[in-house]
């Protein structure tokens, strides 16, 4: 069974550019969440999407946006990249929106902003 897949695995961008990260959830899972993990910290919640609707948003600027497609895959977009956006971006899928007791994570996309 395929787990959560993220692409690309690594990415280098220049300050001010835009980036799109992609996530395919586990088959049958309808919820996708995005997390940012900066070196030495735990993952920080960015967004949750369930049934193609945004269900939760963390404390991130409007430069961060996301969407979920009819096949439940998801994209995370970050505009006007800053050096501080360099991090590991993790996608997690789960079968439910609320009352979700377990999230399965992908391997992440390592974004470096130079």
């Amino acid at each position, binding site marked *: 069974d395929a787990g959560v897949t993220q692409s690309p695995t690594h990415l280098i961008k220049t300050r001010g550019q835009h980036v799109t990260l992609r996530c395919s959830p586990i088959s049958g899972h309808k919820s996708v969440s995005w997390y940012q993990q900066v070196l*030495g910290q735990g993952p920080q919640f960015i967004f949750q999407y369930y049934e193609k609707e945004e269900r*939760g948003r963390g404390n991130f600027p409007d430069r961060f946006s996301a969407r979920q497609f009819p096949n439940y895959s998801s994209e995370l977009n970050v505009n006007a990249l800053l050096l501080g956006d360099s991090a590991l971006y993790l996608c997690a899928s789960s079968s439910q929106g*609320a009352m*979700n007791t377990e999230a399965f994570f*992908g391997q992440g996309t390592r974004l470096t902003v130079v």
Partner: protein
Amino acid sequence: DQQVKQNSPSLSVQEGRISILNCDYTNSMFDYFLWYKKYPAEGPTFLISISSIKDKNEDGRFTVFLNKSAKHLSLHIVPSQPGDSAVYFCAAARFTGTASKLTFGTGTRLQVTL
């Protein structure tokens, strides 16, 4: 405001002994607590969870204890094995009407020595 704290950044334990990883939280509204293990270049892997209405959950070598009055939980691994060497994240979940969000601690790096 760090709502979930792991005050020990690292822990070294001899193979066969017990590993005890600790986690404190401040928000009494959390509904569920989870432990994730993370190897380098991989996403977090779910280990074990516990509902806020319970005080213990066991799964093989892993046991999680919850002390609600102290807002403290711990993960016990016994016996510890070299393959357990990884970073362990404590996470807390709060369920709203339509979403769930994980709040992570900063992680504890466990090293199991021979």
